[in-house]
């Protein structure tokens, strides 16, 4: 499992990462004056909570 994951990392993840970083800042690490973000509303109902994970 570990070896397969390592091969996957270099063949798929590294090229995908290079493309992704061109498009956006995946972790939001660029300088900012504030780091607050609006959070998603919590599940308002039991029914919604049962669907989410």
């Amino acid at each position, binding site marked *: 499992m570990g070896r397969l994951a390592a091969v996957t990392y270099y063949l798929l993840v590294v090229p995908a990462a290079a493309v992704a970083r061109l498009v956006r800042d*995946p972790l939001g690490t660029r300088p900012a004056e504030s780091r607050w973000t609006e959070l998603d509303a919590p599940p308002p109902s039991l029914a919604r909570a049962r669907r989410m994970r």
Partner: protein
Amino acid sequence: MTAILGVSCYFHDAAAALVRDGVLVAAAEEERFSRRKHDSGFPAHAIDFCLEQGGLARGQLDWVVFYEKPVVKLRRIAATVLATAPHGRAPFVRTVEAWAGERLRIRRRLAERLGIPRERVLFVDHHLAHAASAFLASPFEEAALLTVDGVGEWTTAAIGRGADGAVTLDRGIRFPHSLGLFYSAFTAFLGFEVNEGEYKVMGMAPYGEPRLVDEVRRTIDLHDDGSFSLDLDFFAFHRSLARPYSPRFEELFGVPAKDPAAPFVTRETHPDATRAELERSRVYADIAASAQAVLEDAVVALAREAHRRTGSDSLCLAGGVALNGVANRRILERTPFVHMFVPPAPGDSGGAVGAALYADHVLLGRPRRFVMEHAYWGRAYARAEIDDALQAHGASASPESSPRAGSSAGSRGASSGAHGRSGTAASSPTRARPP
């Protein structure tokens, strides 16, 4: 009767908690049964204990609530892998190995283990579980909420408000900007184990002077609105399993990371220590004092923002950073909050309590019926059991004659009372300046 089991596991301090008709019946960390410190595995023993304590058999639970959302957390890990490639191979491999196992199948595992339908397993946001563990165990009818930890799904700190029928977090700071991970980097640099030795950094701080605050502030930017940014050039927690700080972090203080095996010496504890040994320890103590001072400034700024946005004079605080009792004290000293409640297990183990209380009060809409007034929700031990354990290890104990003997004992458990009951807790619940 409505019986709800809260469960936290797979990161650190796995735990289970049982809430019956809105009242906490039992809560325990898996480590108390497995004897593995900070055991993160599936809390089978803690679950069995909670069911036993509640007089429940398999299949008799109404709901089981997990303390975070694994799929959302996996998305954050995937984004981190993309952001750090090609330097994050080791974390990627470990993630695949861990998540290909049972983490993504936690709903099935819980349902099968507890004999309930899968749709009876719910998931609550990690920081909502933290917030609920504080507010829904507090004596307050309404309060500002502040959660601060390493990281949940994406969030590392959040503020919101608790009131009747609602526990709401409306603003948060996202990974990788994290006060918990900031402090853990210093924990590792000072030779202690991450997620274990943070209290030692807090304890080391008074031995030093915060003369390196400027250096520490180069690693973290505290913004005017209470939020903060880490400078990731100084950290490696997002791309390395070996250590959470970068080579640039090591250069900051002019000393190498402390050897974990090397003793920390002072003139009082080691009268024979050389001047060089004393000086080296003093530098590490100064680093601890400086990191602690910056953490306190950051936590106070978050609390001030929580007060500004809510106007409440009561604060409920949770998350692993709330284990830093010195920083908690600073909140009362340096913010307008008059009352503060910190649950005895504000970290991930307490998330099991919060998840269950959140489901009971918010999702099921049942009235609040519980205030946590002590920390002893774990297994009780009869005096004979304690004597047997002492005898088995060649130890003995004599009854204590203190007037306090007979009250509930902590996890080490032996008093002259009839039993000692273990807690989930790092401390007793904190309620400062009670109304």
